[in-house]
């Protein structure tokens, strides 16, 4: 394997074709850089998107399942999660997590970047809301975000590209209730096209967003970015699973060793390598790349690679209403959001907060499942039909994203025994929900119940923590200015390896209480822009 990089090699190698890789690749190719992307998955197969067919709810749980241990596709690696309170949810394909995300497009609030200063916990981010705002605006145009400007939960800003989704009967009910309670609500932002926009068609409210959007209305990057990136010259290699990164004698990354779908090993050289493999995949690769020079894992002199895993404990409160709300349909997606209790109030006995998103509940099979109802709220046996009719079309759900603070012992490690199909050690999660998160979630579940009762719910069903909801994988290669207490700097450059970058959610110092894709995308753009601007001075292998 040659340690030198030649002119024919790419300027940038990106690992992962999810939102991070998509946004970064677009910026690099726009700047005239030669870009290669390695993605272990394939393109999503929308012929398996079955909304509108009788088997939709049944087949959704297979191909579109977010749990790789359940999906077991050729592209997936297993995740050992028996010592974790939450199972990780991710998607190994072109588009990454955006293929199955609900597309709740939430910017972080200004306080999310200043948790140490404002609340005395964790760390401040090495950037502010104001520094990230212009990047939010640019990625919102690219993803086709719908919503309404003027939300008093955020600094005022430019209008979003598309009008908000309909409130629907449930949204109107809850909005009026919140006005009576004096609580915040606002038409929710979604990366869902409410009318035709670029490559996206208009949403038809099938409540199928997470299980294959048949309309191509959701802003997933397999639609919004990759076809255009490839036309612009990006080389995307699918079925390419990275085994490790290689380092030369100067301590610079020379590229990645990857295994193709036939088990054949390849080496991809590049001047610069960017990881965008999510909060589990990225630390896995860094730990797999341990060497005599980096015995604890690549870029891990701080010892923080894999540590501080944050997954947003997620609970739901569902209200049952006498009125037919038509809640088999809608955006899944969110119709309104509430940030009334997002900011810290020390009188509550915990710090930080949560965002609520109001969603429909889907078809009849969904009425029987743990998500969103909770494992302890099943409706089997004697009252099955009575409960089914009370739920179907008559229910609205608050989904609650609880901020998780960084804990050193919550982490991703390499499992000593479990391996993927290519014999590469699998990641293992060690994660326990903290007391702060527990109190926070309990408080929010109770307030959300009050919300739905005020809206006229005749009954409420609470799922205090749903296990298979680890959609948001954050914090495992944290950014900061102190190289002893962080893995990368404010632009994603590894302190220990100057031509290795991490742009994904791994670098978040704290998790916020928001769905993260908006900030992941904006941050990736900001980091990519810095790399482009500094490329003349970028250290690369000789």
């Amino acid at each position, binding site marked *: 394997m040659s340690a030198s990089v030649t002119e024919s090699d790419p300027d940038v190698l990106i690992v992962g074709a999810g939102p991070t890789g998509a946004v970064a690749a677009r910026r690099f190719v726009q700047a005239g850089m030669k870009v290669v992307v390695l993605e272990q998955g394939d393109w999503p197969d929308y012929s398996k998107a079955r909304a509108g067919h009788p088997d939709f709810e049944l087949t959704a749980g297979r191909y579109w399942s977010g749990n790789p241990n359940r999906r077991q596709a050729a592209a997936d690696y297993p995740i050992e999660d028996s010592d974790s309170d939450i199972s990780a949810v991710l998607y190994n394909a072109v588009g990454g997590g955006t293929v199955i995300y609900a597309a709740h497009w939430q910017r972080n609030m200004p306080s999310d970047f200043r948790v140490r200063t404002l609340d005395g916990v964790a760390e401040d981010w090495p950037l502010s809301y104001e520094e990230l705002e212009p990047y939010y605006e640019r990625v919102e145009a690219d993803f086709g975000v719908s919503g309404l400007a003027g939300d*008093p939960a955020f600094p005022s800003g430019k209008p979003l590209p598309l009008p908000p989704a309909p409130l629907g009967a449930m949204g109107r009910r809850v909005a*009026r209730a919140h006005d009576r309670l004096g609580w915040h609500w606002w*038409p929710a932002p979604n990366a869902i096209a409410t009318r035709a926009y670029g490559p996206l068609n208009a949403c038809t409210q099938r409540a199928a967003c997470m299980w294959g959007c048949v309309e191509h209305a959701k802003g997933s990057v397999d639609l919004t970015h990759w076809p255009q990136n490839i036309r612009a010259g990006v080389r995307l290699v699918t079925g390419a699973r990275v085994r490790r990164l290689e380092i030369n004698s100067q301590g610079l990354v020379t590229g990645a060793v990857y295994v193709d779908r036939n088990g054949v090993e390849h080496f991809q050289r590049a001047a610069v390598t960017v990881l965008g493999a999510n909060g589990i995949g990225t630390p896995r690769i860094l730990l797999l790349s341990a060497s005599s020079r980096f015995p604890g894992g690549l870029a891990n002199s701080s010892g923080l690679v894999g540590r501080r895993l944050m997954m947003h404990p997620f609970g739901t409160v569902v209200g049952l209403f006498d009125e037919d709300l038509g809640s088999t*349909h809608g955006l899944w997606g969110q119709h309104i959001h509430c940030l009334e209790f997002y900011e810290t109030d020390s009188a509550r006995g915990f710090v930080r907060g949560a965002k609520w998103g109001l969603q429909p509940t889907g078809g009849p099979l969904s009425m029987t499942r743990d998500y969103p109802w909770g494992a302890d709220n099943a409706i089997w046996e*004697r009252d*099955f039909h009575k409960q*089914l009719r009370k739920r179907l079309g008559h229910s609205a759900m608050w989904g609650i994203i609880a901020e998780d603070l960084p804990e050193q012992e919550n982490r991703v490690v390499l499992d000593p025994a479990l391996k993927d199909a290519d014999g590469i050690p699998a990641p293992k999660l060690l994660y326990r929900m903290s007391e702060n998160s527990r109190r926070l979630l309990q408080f929010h579940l109770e307030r959300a119940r009050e919300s739905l009762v005020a809206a006229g719910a005749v009954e409420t069903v609470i799922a205090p923590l749903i296990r298979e909801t680890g959609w948001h994988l954050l914090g495992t290669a944290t950014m900061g200015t102190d190289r002893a207490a962080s893995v990368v700097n404010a632009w994603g450059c590894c302190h220990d390896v100057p031509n290795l970058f991490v742009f994904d959610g791994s670098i978040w110092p704290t998790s916020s209480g928001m769905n993260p894709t908006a900030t992941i995308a904006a941050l990736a753009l900001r980091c990519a822009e810095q790399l482009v601007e500094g490329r003349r001075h970028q250290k690369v292998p000789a």
Partner: protein
Amino acid sequence: MNFGAEERSLLAGLADILIPSGDGLPPASDAGVAGEGLDQVLAFRPDLGAGLKKLLGQAANRNSEEFVAQLRSSDPAGYGLLTELVPAAYFLNPQVREKLGYHGQGPRPIDARTDALDESLLQAVKNRGPIYRPTPK
């Protein structure tokens, strides 16, 4: 994967514990859960077949009610499989769907006139002013 008459009979017994008759709807067995319903489910989800075969082997010569209770308390994977497969087969039955008034996840396009936001609803939220903490200077 094929299932014989005895296995289907066992499945029907288990399915009727989960979904008995009620509210004008038939029990699972009458809705064909162990017959055509099972065949349809396995055509869409062949991955469920091996687990079901194993589970029905365990259910042989057992009281259906007790077996379901045991699964619920001590075999989450088996219980999860049964509670996925049985309602899936049940809701594939066109008569059941009709009686529920459920016609699938067909399109409901956004109508710019009827779905337009009544912005007067937002006035109270606006009147309460900003609720975020600005970046400290």
